[in-house]
């Protein structure tokens, strides 16, 4: 267990030494500072009476804006932003974790240590997940607390959305670990991971295409890919519902996507365990 923690710790330190994570942390801090000091909300009788950004009044157009709706809106906006930009940055920052570990002269050293290969691989996975988790926790919980203190509204939507974002990253990280161990290439890992976004969106709208297809096998392949690959679009919709505090229709897309991530991680671990270095 101590050795596994050493791998996790080593991975966290390695990630923290990278500029990308520093930039991520700086962006989060900047966002927190803006929400804390630059946004001023005057709440009267549960509604927003006045709002100022960087000391300048924001015209509300005479509309009565319920403060809990405003908080939900801010939380949803932030959740959507982190889901898109945060995932993009996190994938970019951690795509080389496995290729770096597999570099000649480094992998030999690690494999010569009294640590099983699955533990080494999973330690690397948990390390990357921890770094992204810390960053996410810092931003999401920070904004949630600041908004709560400023408005007195403590809606859990953003926290739930944060959990979904971390789960989505965990799914992508499983995929990146698998691609990384097969190809030993950071660039291929990044390309394939980013390619999943448009591909899964295309598969979400596959019904529009299948009406034009005559071959059953083509429809079968599209359906199969849809069910196997992560459902980023649907996860985004679940995230939106949770952030807004609305009921979520079905968690099946989330569960099948998690299964994909776990499957990729298992496949990557198996390959790493059996491979000669």
């Amino acid at each position, binding site marked *: 267990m101590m050795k596994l923690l*050493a791998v996790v710790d*080593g991975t966290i330190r390695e990630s923290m*030494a990278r500029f990308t994570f520093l930039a991520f942390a700086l962006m989060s801090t900047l966002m927190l500072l803006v929400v804390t000091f630059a946004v001023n909300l005057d709440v009267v009788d549960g509604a927003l009476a006045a709002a100022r950004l960087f000391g300048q009044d924001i015209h509300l157009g005479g509309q009565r804006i319920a403060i809990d709706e405003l908080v939900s809106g801010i939380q949803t906006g932030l959740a959507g932003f982190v889901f898109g930009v945060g995932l993009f940055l996190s994938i970019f920052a951690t795509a080389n974790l496995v290729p770096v570990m597999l*570099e000649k*002269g480094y992998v*030999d050293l690690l494999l*010569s*240590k009294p*640590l099983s290969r699955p533990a080494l691989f999973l330690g690397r996975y948990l390390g990357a997940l921890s770094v992204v988790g810390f960053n996410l926790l810092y931003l999401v919980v920070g904004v949630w607390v600041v908004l709560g203190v400023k408005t007195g509204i403590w809606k859990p939507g953003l926290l739930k959305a944060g959990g979904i974002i971390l789960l989505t990253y965990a799914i992508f990280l499983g995929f990146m670990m698998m691609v990384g161990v097969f190809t030993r290439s950071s660039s291929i890992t990044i390309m394939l991971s980013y390619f999943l976004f448009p591909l899964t969106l295309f598969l979400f709208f596959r019904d529009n295409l299948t009406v034009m297809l005559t071959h059953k096998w083509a429809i079968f392949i599209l359906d199969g890919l849809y069910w196997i690959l992560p459902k980023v679009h649907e996860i985004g919709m679940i995230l939106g519902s949770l952030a807004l505090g609305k009921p979520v229709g079905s968690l099946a897309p989330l569960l099948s996507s998690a299964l994909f991530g776990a499957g990729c991680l298992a496949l990557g671990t198996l390959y790493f365990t059996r491979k000669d270095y």
Partner: protein
Amino acid sequence: MSGFAIEIQDLHKTFRVGWHRIPIRALDGISLAVSQGEVFGLLGPNGAGKTTLVKVLLGITRPQAGRAEVLGLPVGNVPSRSRMGYLPEGHRYPLHLTGEGVVRWFARLSGVRGAQIGPRARILLERVGLTRWSGVRLRKYSKGMVQRLGLAVALIHEPEVLFLDEPTDGVDPVGRAEIRKILQEEKQRGTTIFINSHLLSEIERTCDRVAILSQGRILRAGTVSDLTDRGLDYRVEAGTVAPAVLEAIRANGTPVEATNGCLHLRVPSLERLNACLDSLRSAGCLIRQVTPERSTLEESFIQILGEEETRP
């Protein structure tokens, strides 16, 4: 299987490379035993299979056939690796860490307990001459310094068997002498040391026994004296010898060369050597010294590889 730190029997390993999966035989039936506390050197040209053999012994690569044990345990056994240290060729350490940070992190990976890590790291960094640099990040280190750090990393958990792949690569002569000293200290502590190296002079100075590996097979194994012994070649210091005496020796079927007051004799037996000495004495030569001639390890190495290449 006891008394040996390392025992290998009929080990085979073939890699398949490229799209066509072309087989490359890296180890071809290797059998070898290294005693506990011995310093063993493995020599061979590039691609001979030296690193593959070490990787098999550390469980980094798996053999297709044969048996290998280290400290009485089958290779690949995870707990046994806590009793082995390894300095790979061309090793890479995380550049964002300091020298002490690297040693401490690998100590944790090797299972060294928390309270022991700090004192051990400091002692080892002092032994390898890096105390002043212990707080400096690795990106500032020279190649020789990284090599010495690698030795500290390999020793941090006080291993019983130490595998070193080109340990003096990139190290200056002073650093090499320091590394030799550390290896001697480890030998005295009872550590079994297995060295792969191209630097034959280093092997000659450090190792108790050596083996020469080529194309995945062991061509010769033994002590350095065994490998450098030229058989019945002798050097006789006998002052000036008359050409007629030399001709008489040659006439008896013994090749002899005279250079700088020394005779170099190649005799088929000790009896013939004594007969030659008798001839010299009867001709009035004063014999001061008779010594068997030896090759350097490098000469023997090249000769053995040459013999292998010319073998049908």
